[in-house]
């Protein structure tokens, strides 16, 4: 009987404190600042693997491909 009471009390305590373990579900909002996931720079992954200079060279080359005066003259 005594053990049953102990189990019952433990269950009540566990249920009563269950809400205490809940994570806060409200976003910690900072107005005016980006709230989403962080992004990585475009040169961070293959084929550039963090080589920013190589990526910028590639972009400059591609940009000049749009200049047909440079290609024809």
């Amino acid at each position, binding site marked *: 009987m005594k053990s049953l009471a102990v189990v019952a009390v433990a269950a009540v305590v566990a249920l009563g404190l269950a809400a205490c373990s809940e994570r806060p579900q409200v976003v910690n909002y900072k107005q005016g600042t980006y*709230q*989403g*996931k962080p*992004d*990585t720079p475009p040169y*961070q992954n293959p084929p550039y693997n963090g080589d920013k200079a190589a*990526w910028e060279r590639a*972009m400059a080359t591609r940009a000049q491909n*749009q200049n047909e*005066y440079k290609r024809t003259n």
Partner: protein
Amino acid sequence: MARMKFLCDAERCIECNGCVTACKQEHDVPWGVNRRRVVTLNDGQPGQRAISVACMHCSDAPCMAVCPVDCFYHTEEGVVLHDKDLCIGCGYCFYACPFGAPQFPQQGAFGVRGKMDKCTFCAGGPEKDQSPEEFAKYGRNRLSEGKLPVCAEMCSTKALLAGDGNVISDIYRNRVTMRAARGTKSGPPWGWDTAYGQAQGAAVTGPGATPAPAPASGGKS
């Protein structure tokens, strides 16, 4: 590197809608969403012009200013992107954007708006670069592959330019100067006066034209 920008040369755009089609195909954009559109002005009239319009990746983006959940961010290259996991589809950005860039997929029977979708300058989003998750939400990340946006790269007349703002403005300036030098274009390019103003008393301004006298005080600069 400067900021990534688009520039549409209205003298060259032939309203083929190739950029629109390429964008939809490249990013698997759903029905009803157009990240890029070709706008025709003075349709059927003399002086008709067409320009290709999408998100202009504003330096001081109004969509970013009005977003109630702050889901927009600028990348290092000046591209305006957003996190679809945060977007609540409220539509404020659509009202704020002067270009009508934000698009909302219709996902329900009662006009329910989905999460906002817009041009990403082919730079994906905050998911892992080149991952299936990034493609599903934002489309292909061409910038991380060292490529420029597909709409500009496939433009048959090279009316639409994309890339570093300094580089593409140099390309455009050279183009306009060459037109004037060859006599194919007597006046300033279309929109030049609207963008840069016209000096008082000067008939023609712009590259290749005779320099206009300096305007009196109070004139547009």
